[in-house]
């Protein structure tokens, strides 16, 4: 693995530590001893070709799947368990016959949050969907559904949010609005800790624009962990385009 220079966030203690996580599906090796730390306020992009293990990694972090070997620790909140990580799967996981508000309230109750009504109001405000609160999800645009999907991942106020290709079904304008929202989540605020966001994507432009850190996976192996600028630099001179640099990097690594 090529290791880039230390990012500024590394000065803080990790809130999530992924240690030698390995996953096998029969004979197929989906993840090979993947290790990295997540620190507060980081926006970490997980990139790689199809079948690289991105979704498997995120679903293990979310607790949907168990690793074959290795472990995922939350040093800051060791007893939090799955509550340490919010999860938004690739397809919006919402009840389409329920309204935005009803979806949020249901999951707030299932998450046993202290004050479901207050959490619902906060999520509606964060997602900018207060005016659509009583609309059924089936009548929302793809972008707004994805906002509710992300909000459900945040409803228990986790320190880390895992998003599986959150922008894959959105048009450019909806994508921009989603990233504004996620950026605000990870941005520094005076009233509490920042949420770290891990997201998988195939849009390398988004990685360059919004991510503070990029993790490159290929065939289940972690090939790179550093900033987008460092990824461009790692691919050698002559290419300051992230997509080109990413392809060159994979080729150089034999993928």
């Amino acid at each position, binding site marked *: 693995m090529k290791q880039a220079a230390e990012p500024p966030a590394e000065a803080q203690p990790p809130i999530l530590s992924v240690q030698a996580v390995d996953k096998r599906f029969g004979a197929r090796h989906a993840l090979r001893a993947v290790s990295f730390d997540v620190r507060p306020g980081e926006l970490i992009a997980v990139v790689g070709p199809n079948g690289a293990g991105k979704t498997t990694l995120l679903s293990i972090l979310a607790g949907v799947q168990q690793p074959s070997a290795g472990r995922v620790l939350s040093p800051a909140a060791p007893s939090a368990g*799955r509550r340490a990580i919010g999860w938004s799967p690739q397809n919006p996981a919402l*009840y389409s*016959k*329920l309204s935005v508000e009803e979806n949020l309230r249901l999951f707030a109750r*299932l998450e046993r949050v202290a004050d479901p009504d207050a959490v619902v109001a906060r999520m509606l405000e964060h997602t900018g969907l207060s005016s659509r609160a009583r609309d059924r999800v089936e009548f929302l645009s793809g972008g707004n559904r994805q906002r509710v999907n992300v909000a459900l991942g945040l409803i228990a106020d986790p320190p880390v949010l895992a998003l599986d290709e959150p922008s894959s079904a959105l048009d450019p304008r909806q994508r921009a609005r989603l990233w504004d929202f996620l950026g605000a989540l990870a941005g520094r605020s005076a009233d509490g800790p920042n949420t770290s966001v891990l997201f998988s994507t195939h849009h390398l432009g988004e990685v360059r624009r919004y991510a503070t850190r990029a993790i490159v996976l290929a065939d289940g192996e972690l090939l790179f962990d550093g900033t987008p600028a460092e990824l461009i630099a790692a691919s050698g001179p002559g290419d300051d385009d992230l997509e080109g640099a990413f392809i060159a990097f994979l080729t150089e690594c034999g993928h």
Partner: protein
Amino acid sequence: MRWLLLKDLVILRRSRLLVAMLVVYPVVLALLIGLAISRSPSRPRVAVVDETPPGQTVQVGSERVQVSQYAQQLFSQVTTVRVPSRAQAVEKVKQGSVLAAVVIPRDLASRLSSSIAPARLEVIYNGDAIEQSLVRSTLNSALAQANLGFSEQIQQAAAKAIDLLLAGGNLSIIGAPPNLIGLSQIPPALHSILAHLPPGAERRQLERISAFANFAAQNLSVSKNVLQTVSQPIQVKSTLLHGRRTPLNTFAVVVAVSVSLMFIGVLLAAGGMALEREEHVLIRLVRGLITRERLLVEKAVLSAVCSFAVAFAMLAGVSAFVALDWSRVGQWLAALAFGAVAFGALGVAIGALAREVRAASLLAFLLSLPLAFLALVPAGAVAVGLYDAIRVVSFAFPFKATLQALDAAVNGASPSIGSSLVHLAGLTVVFAGLARVGLRRVE
């Protein structure tokens, strides 16, 4: 779990068409099945060409039997359409306005009287295999009934003639001289003559004649009973080995309610379970918000409560028209509850294995309908091997056990309700286990 239950109730309330279909469809289907079982089939329309001259009779001894009586009995089981000629009858069969035609030939009476050549009817029919089978079985049954009735009349006429031969009297109607001595009167008459005859060849000759007359009179008397036996050689005596006799209409109620219970329970549970996967919510729920077991229980309970409520309402509603024993209501509730839970378990197993609501609903429907049909196939209606296979399939699914439990609860029929409830409880455990296996995969 209560939040998920409330959520499902809200979703059901907002899916009015689905709920209406879930309730109306099985109820209508169940009522149709019930009607089909409890009502006798309508009489098929049959064209009749009666070529016999009006008032024609068959001579049996001193009696005359009207041929028209035979026709009346023959057509008591069909709706007759009188047509004047065979050609018109054939045309009506071709057009499909009647299912068959029967031609009673002109020489029917003479053939019956002659006893040399059997009388023949001509049956003309058409239609598809089912119609042909219906017409043939109906006409065969009608012919058997008419033949039986006609032979009874002939037997009665023959018995009357035998009585005349035995008792004597005016037998001029069969061509005998008037005031003829009866066969049974000959032995006493000869006995009084023999008392005055001296021994010798004449006396021995008369004694032989007397013995013959005595023997003939006794045997002719017995032949009346023989005639009666021949006209109806086997009579049926029915004995029910166990339980109460179940009236057909209350059994039809049990079938109708069981079908409704099955459709609502299975479809609702399968659809509700598959919805969690189709909406991609399952992956979020099983992250620790709710265990897979509790999710299965929630779906099975919701469907069981809904199907139980509809089925009980059906039973209560039907009791206004069909006499049901309300003192057994405790057993009704037990049978309905166990059946509803078993169908719910089957439904969640289907829903857990299917990826989407439509697939789950289709699978539930395709599985339920043949199961109900198979459970209603009576023993002896199909080959032994096939019936054994049907019994195994029916045993492995909850419909037959529910039908038996409800029949025992409503009608006191056998087997006892206890064994059926144990069977249903076992099936519930098996299908819940299958559902749990199906939920191992969440995506």
